[in-house]
């Protein structure tokens, strides 16, 4: 009879590999949830619509000293923008001096910071072109950019 024999009872299946599997699943879901919202944002802290009595807010907001409109019209399959009395242009995207982007950058240097730009698109103008113009305004460092309602046309 041997004393001191170690009794070692195996109590169940070995769970260690299961931890590895579960960790892999966890990492998968962590990465998966991080991919779910890839969007970036164009932000605006001014009301997106020229108030014109639409809002019920009684907050005292100073009226901008100067307002300039960017009219967007649909001619066939093209969106044409006209602003600051310049000739209408269908070039909403490039950096050329004759493009809308070039015009806005030129005017941004000449105008004061409290100038409000109001983008006034026609109803048929695609949303992507409206965003392109808004993007151009932000890129030209205009701080107050708003949108006009369709009803104002």
């Amino acid at each position: 009879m041997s004393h001191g024999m170690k009794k070692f009872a195996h109590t169940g299946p070995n769970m260690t590999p299961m931890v590895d599997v579960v960790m892999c699943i966890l990492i998968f879901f962590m990465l998966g949830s991080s991919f779910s919202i890839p969007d970036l944002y164009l932000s605006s802290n001014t009301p997106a619509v020229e108030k014109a009595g639409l809002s019920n807010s009684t907050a005292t907001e100073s009226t901008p000293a100067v307002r300039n409109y960017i009219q967007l019209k649909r001619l066939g399959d093209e969106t044409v923008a006209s602003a600051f009395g310049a000739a209408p242009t269908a070039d909403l995207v490039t950096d050329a001096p004759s493009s809308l982007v070039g015009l806005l950058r030129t005017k941004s240097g000449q105008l004061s910071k409290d100038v409000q730009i109001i983008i006034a698109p026609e109803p048929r103008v695609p949303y992507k072109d409206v965003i392109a113009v808004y993007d151009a305004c932000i890129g030209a460092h205009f701080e107050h950019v708003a949108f006009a309602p369709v009803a104002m046309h």
Partner: protein
Amino acid sequence: MGRRIVEPMHEEHVNVTPLIDVVMCLIIFFLLVGQMAKDEVNGEVTVPKSRTCVEMVDSAGRLIVNVIAKSNKVGDTGETKVGTVPPDVIVRGKLVALNLLTENLRKEKHDNKDLRLVIRADSCLSYEFIAPVLISCAQADIKSINFATEQGVPEGNVPVK
């Protein structure tokens, strides 16, 4: 009679069973978060591109309004055109009628004074369908409005399909 002395069992391995329970809880958490994010952000929307877009660092108080273009058949040829009929407006995973959107936004604004609205709209939509959403935001006195875009050069005057 000699008693057999049984030595206490020595556990050489750490019991990992509770760790699996913890990890399972984490998996369920990420599953639910992923599902909630999927409901909030409708994957069917193709947002426009912009160059000056930035990442939203703090998403506290964010409310996403999805404006999803619908297609309809045009003419007798069966050709479909997208973005020419009133779109679906989805807020927090629920379809909201445009005439009820203002009330909906007012409630959200009442619940959260620092509400930051994000408009995720299909790039092919006409402005006539976006303007009502903007008007609702103005009527609900929401000042912080963000437009969801992708990083890139805007498409410009690409012929509308």
